[in-house]
């Protein structure tokens, strides 16, 4: 497995760049992943990242996009729980990009 050095710490990632050991995640790792994904992190981005981390903590999986969208709508309101909003934040897919930045594995059922 490839290793990347982030802020002086070696972290292990898979061939697609997802973290192997979720406990190695921190804000520096997130920022590093965001730069690689060409995502300019704003407060709105962090809100989704934090939501994903909470979701993972509660259910032990990375949600499918459809499920994520619905869950965000429930918690943060319909103006955020829709594809347009999430894809504007993460153009290459909230599941693919946001999960990677959040240090989660690739979502199950992400085809």
């Amino acid at each position, binding site marked *: 497995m490839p290793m990347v050095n982030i802020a002086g710490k070696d972290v292990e990632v898979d061939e697609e760049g997802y973290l192997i050991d979720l406990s190695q995640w921190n804000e520096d790792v997130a920022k590093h992943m965001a730069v690689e994904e060409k995502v300019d992190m704003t407060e709105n981005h962090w809100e989704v990242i934090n939501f994903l981390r909470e979701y993972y903590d509660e259910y*032990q999986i990375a949600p499918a996009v459809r499920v994520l969208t619905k869950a965000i709508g429930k918690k943060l309101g319909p103006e955020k729980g829709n594809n347009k909003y999430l894809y504007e934040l993460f153009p290459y897919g909230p599941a693919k990009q946001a999960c990677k930045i959040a240090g989660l594995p690739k979502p199950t059922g992400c085809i």
Partner: protein
Amino acid sequence: MSDMDMEDDGSGIVKKFMFLNRKAPHGTVYALEGLEVVLITAAFDQDVSLVFTDDGVYQLMKGIDTKGIEVKDFSKTYRALDGYDIEKLYVDQSSLDARGLTEDDLIVDVTVLSDDEMKNLMDEQDVVISF
């Protein structure tokens, strides 16, 4: 013809799928793999029922702690099924009884069925997949 066209042709068909979970959560990969298949199937808008029977009822036990065996505890993931619109979870009374368990020992809400009810439910299915 592209694959997309093929998929469009079949998009209106909804079949009744039953996933039958019969094995203890750890020691084999059946429970985890079964769960992943169910989560993936959820994307296809099918009529999905999940059954936990025999040692499969242990998959739904509250308070599982896998630290000692160094594998992931995925029992919390069953609580995410609701968000995937998988709401039909069944357990049979005899499997609970044989293991000294009740509904209160389970991490999610289930419908408890008698053996006859379970037979009827299985008869109604188009597809039954056993893990």
